């Protein structure tokens, strides 16, 4: 691997990311999948002294429905327009979606309008007719992982831990996986482009870790909306993740880092499914490979309580990573709710070691 070659590519794919004053658009599913992540994002930005508006009136972008062919694109564009209107009403100009699919949708809509102003005009009229709202297009559109990337060094400066194995002193080996809709559709809209994306790599490098380049890094996690939503298609979804696991396992990664709602969920849960169906595991000692969202990882290096970050909701236990880094945590608190009450224990997998 010629590192300078990659750095040259990274230079070609730099994007503008707003400094402050964000309109935050939450993800539909992340709050269920990894509920600590978005909370952590809000906390990190607050601690960084950034202004962010988390509007409760914000709805789905229709991404899942759109990609499942249920909602026509006109509807999608009108919903998106409403969100822009909410941003405009809040007096903000920097739009930050938490979801990669949303990021893709917003990017696609803006690109379409750029080429076809008449469509934008039509949507404006639609929105006005339907809701009486008007909007300005965002001046800056960045995914929330772009924001963390932008402030990766600030986070590193404030960090309590580094992504280094405290026993050996060696950097942790991290597999980075970007959501497909982050930059594969519009490479120039992602930090580092689509081939050698930098957004997560930048974080890992800033926080002391080492990124693994493995052959199937481009492969989709298998979420793919219709593949996962229709039960009969789930075998295809698992197969996609499995392909990635088989490709990355020989590199012995310590963890997988993701920036999409679906990817961490599927890369985490399908490890359990593969182990149950085929008896195969991909981590050390018959365990799995822990999967993190970028907010979770940022929160972890900043020294947040792992259980506040929602790490207990992972199927593949994260404790090996915490132990390697030397994160202080209370084992007994893992299954306690916010109110301190015990939440009960999940059933143990039959094969995957927890």
């Amino acid at each position, binding site marked *: 691997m010629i590192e300078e*070659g*990659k750095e*040259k*590519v990274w230079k070609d794919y730099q994007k503008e990311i707003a400094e402050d004053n964000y309109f935050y658009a939450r993800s539909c599913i992340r709050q269920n999948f990894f509920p600590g992540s978005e909370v952590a994002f809000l906390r990190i930005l607050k601690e960084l002294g950034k202004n962010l508006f988390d509007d409760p009136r914000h709805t789905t972008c229709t991404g899942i429905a759109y990609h499942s062919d249920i909602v026509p694109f006109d509807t999608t564009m009108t919903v998106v327009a409403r969100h822009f209107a909410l941003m405009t009403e809040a007096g903000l100009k920097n739009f930050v979606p938490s979801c990669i699919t949303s990021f893709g949708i917003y990017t696609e809509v803006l690109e379409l309008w750029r080429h076809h102003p008449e469509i934008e005009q039509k949507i404006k009229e639609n929105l006005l007719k339907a809701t009486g709202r008007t909007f300005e297009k965002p001046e800056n559109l960045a995914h929330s992982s772009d924001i963390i990337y932008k402030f990766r060094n600030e986070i590193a400066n404030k960090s309590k831990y580094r992504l280094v194995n405290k026993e050996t002193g060696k950097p942790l080996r991290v597999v980075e996986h970007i959501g497909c809709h982050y930059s594969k559709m519009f490479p120039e809209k992602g930090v580092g482009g689509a*081939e050698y994306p930098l957004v997560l790599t930048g974080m890992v490098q800033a926080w002391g870790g080492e990124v693994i380049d*493995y052959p199937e890094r481009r492969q989709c996690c298998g979420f793919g909306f219709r593949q996962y939503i229709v039960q009969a298609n789930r075998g295809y979804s698992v197969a996609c993740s499995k392909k990635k696991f088989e490709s990355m396992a020989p590199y012995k990664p310590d963890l997988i880092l993701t920036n999409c709602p679906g990817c961490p969920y599927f890369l985490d849960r399908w490890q359990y499914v593969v182990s149950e169906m085929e008896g195969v595991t991909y981590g050390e000692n018959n365990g799995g490979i822990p999967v993190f969202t970028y907010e979770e990882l940022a929160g972890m290096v900043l020294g947040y309580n792992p259980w506040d970050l929602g790490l207990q909701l992972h199927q593949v236990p994260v404790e090996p990573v915490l132990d390697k880094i030397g994160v202080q945590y209370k084992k007994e608190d893992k299954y306690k709710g916010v109110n301190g009450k015990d939440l009960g224990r999940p059933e143990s997998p039959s094969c995957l070691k927890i």
Partner: protein
Amino acid sequence: MDTNKTVAVIGGGIAGMEAATFLSARGITVYLIEKEDKLGGHLLDWERLFPTMRNGSEVVKFLMDGVKADNIKIMLSSKLTAAEKSGKGYNLRINENVDLFADAVLVTTGYDLFDATKKEEYGYGIYDNVITSADLEKIFMSGKALQTKQGNVPKKIGLVHCVGSRDEKAGNVYCSKVCCVTGVKQAIEIKQKMPYTEVFNFYMDLRMYGMHFEALYKKAQADFGIQFIRGRLSEASEDQNGGIILKVEDTLMGKPLKLTVDILVLLIGLIPAKGSKEVGELFGLKNGVNGFYKTTDQHTLTNSSNVDGVFFAGACTSPKTITNTITDARAAASTVAAYLFNYRSLERKIEQNEDFWLYNTK
């Protein structure tokens, strides 16, 4: 039969040298202007030539024999920096300090090689063991053994055709014409040097249009066991040992195919030369849809430009083989002579046959 005519030939590659030779034979004084310090152009970097495997240096020697004439003034390390119409001819400035007059200008600025880093997914400049066809020729020229970066003898080598050609994503929709057969030639050369190395060529179409090209292709299959797989490389990855994992569709099987090779060779295409652009701006020469100079006509007036007294030869108007280039250079010499001596042949006209409709552009 010396005449008092002078022609400036801009570019001392194959076309420039051969055109200069034939112009000088008509008693025309030729200024052969080359920006590098040697004549020969890209041919200097090519070891053996398809389809006969002749040494490129023999052709260079042949061309050099031609430009030894007294009335050819070879100007090396020389760059045209200004041009101004003067009567029927041009006042030209070379390197900011030399001025000369030419009755006609023959542009032979050739081509550049496609920058393979533009195909990011192939990993050129990023993966250790991805090289281009031009790099491979340099290795052949050096006489060194072809090795992986890790210092091993490659057991498997892949060659990818059409890198930067026929590819809208790369911005070049045309066929570079020479890479198909170069791929076959280089595959054979690899096998000749390393008979136990498996060689795979990945192609979308194999265009064996020239005389003996098909024979070369058949020989590659029959005598060297080179495997041709119809499918364009979609992406390459590096494995832990520095091997390159290729993902293609085996289009004849209708299935994706994965293959790990020790060295990947990218058969890069020909693109309009940067030099052509610079020279073109000086004279106000028109470019065609694909960025090469636009000739007055596709079929007939193939050496004439939109500017009076400026002519073209060689690969500056479209990718050409050496054979085509030499033929074209002689044709251009003829055309220039016709212009200088007012041959009736240049009076012929043909209705313009626009090529834009082919591309749906304006």
